[in-house]
């Protein structure tokens, strides 16, 4: 019996979410009196995972898996889960994690809870707390099947060092043509920018910015903070910013440590997309803007005066 964690990597490097799921898996293994095994696919140096508690790392190397393919990855995870006698499987709730976990769940006849935000409150019955109603509530969900899959929400547990002397084992996974019914033809990535999914800090702006020509200061602020840029729905609808930056109910969800909203009033659909962020800062001229009720810190003021000051002061702060 083991706890298996899928540690996702990109170009040989582990994502922060991979370190988070390993940290989380280690703790669950302790709760269950079990051991934690991490699975990697075409990752480079896996020793980093020992630092976060992986007692064993199962490595799968296969050139056909260089590009993410949900069905093929799901097949590999299933094979390793069976080989390792895994009763609990942990996958992050990233875009790729949410793509492959339901496929694995059917393959393993496992119950699946996505967007889980905490360690199991109870392991018998196995009860996890997950986001519901667009982060306006949580549901305490019991996974009743023998095998269980937890989809861990980003930034909900944290990354904790817990060094162990781990071992590595390579695994020959079988993938067939049938696993590649969906083929990747082209990946179009915005390069050189922090993505909303990876960002610990997101700087977002709305119609209060008055026009796309004023986004320079938003990008500069994001640059100083190492943040991703985002926007409200009206801004993407107006074509001021790309749709990929739209945050909200029907746009991208954000679960950053810090979310700075500039010139965004805080419509309920926007708040539904950012509820999971830990600390929210609002800068708005309207003291009645609904966002102030959802925010931790706020400045009632003109973005065109406040943001340049903030950039300068943050530069000085970072330099000190």
């Amino acid at each position: 019996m083991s706890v298996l964690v899928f540690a996702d990597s990109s170009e040989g490097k582990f994502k922060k979410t991979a370190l988070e799921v390993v940290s989380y898996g280690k703790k669950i293994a302790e709760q269950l009196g079990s051991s934690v095994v991490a699975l990697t696919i075409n990752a480079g140096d896996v020793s980093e995972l020992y630092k976060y508690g992986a007692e064993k790392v199962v490595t799968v190397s296969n050139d056909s898996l260089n590009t993410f393919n949900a069905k093929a990855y799901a097949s590999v995870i299933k094979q390793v889960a069976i080989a390792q006698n895994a009763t609990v499987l942990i996958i992050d709730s990233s875009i790729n994690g949410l793509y492959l976990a339901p496929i694995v769940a059917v393959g393993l006849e496992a119950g699946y809870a996505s967007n889980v935000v905490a360690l199991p409150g109870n392991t018998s019955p196995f009860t996890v707390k997950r986001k519901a109603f667009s982060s306006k509530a949580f549901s305490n969900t019991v996974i009743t099947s023998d095998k269980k899959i937890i989809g861990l929400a980003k930034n909900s547990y944290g990354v904790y060092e817990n060094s162990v002397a781990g071992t590595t084992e390579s695994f020959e996974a079988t993938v067939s043509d049938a696993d590649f019914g969906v083929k990747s033809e082209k990946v179009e990535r915005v390069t050189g920018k922090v993505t909303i999914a990876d960002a610990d800090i997101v700087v977002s702006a709305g119609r209060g910015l008055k026009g796309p020509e004023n986004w320079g200061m938003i990008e500069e602020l994001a640059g100083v903070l190492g943040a991703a840029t985002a926007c409200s729905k009206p801004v993407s609808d107006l074509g001021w910013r790309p749709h990929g930056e739209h945050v909200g109910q029907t746009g991208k969800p954000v679960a950053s440590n810090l979310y700075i909203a500039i010139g965004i009033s805080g419509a309920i659909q926007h708040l539904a997309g950012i509820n999971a962020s830990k600390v929210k800062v609002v800068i708005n001229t309207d003291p009645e803007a609904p966002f102030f009720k959802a925010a931790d810190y706020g400045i009632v003021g003109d973005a065109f005066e406040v943001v340049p000051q903030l950039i300068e002061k943050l530069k000085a702060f970072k330099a000190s």
Partner: protein
Amino acid sequence: MKILVCISHVPDTTSKINFTENDTKFDTNGVQFVINPYDEFSLTRAMWFKEKQGATVTVVNVGSSATEPTLRKALAIGADDAIRVNMEPTDGFLVAKQLAEVVKNGGYDLVLAGRESIDYNGGMVPGMLATLTDFNFVNGCVGMEVDGTNVSATREIDGGNEVLSTSLPLVVAGQKGIVEEKDLRIPNMRGIMMARKKPLQVIEATDANATTTIQSFEKPAPKGAVKLVAADNVDELINLLHNEAKVI
């Protein structure tokens, strides 16, 4: 092409979220239910295929009779017929099993759904359905074209998009981008009148075991009042973010 669109019946996005029966049931009192927004994008894409390329569009929901107004709305938008599987949708796997039966019995080429429902946010039904039916599957779809049985689809990835090629039969979980929000349709009077006469078939659920149950709900702890900082004192904001919130 025979298209099936999966429709979730969800509380309107502006609904107040409350629970009853010792926090074990969602309080539907005063709540307006709508077509799940992600499903609405997929339904609109299905209507596009129907009108431009020729297709029949069936909508399906797993739910009690309370969901029928939502299915009628989908019919008013232009779907040809509707199926309701008579079951309380308590678990994503159970819903996927019911939908898989409908798919197997209906001979559909393309199944469209939303990326997730905005109530339970599981995001698992389309992937489970595709696996149960052995259909190809594209999640988080933001664009697609069908040419014969060949499909080109675009999905969202972190920091960009990925273009995929695949073929029918196919399950697609759509989101904004598969059509734009401005292209979503509001039922007109003629559509509403016609929808009343369109077939809505009720079928009984197939036996299956749930893999999860919801024990209880809880709401986030009440948040303290916002701390306001003077507009000419951003040093104080930086101080709070560094020393109090510890996020910079």
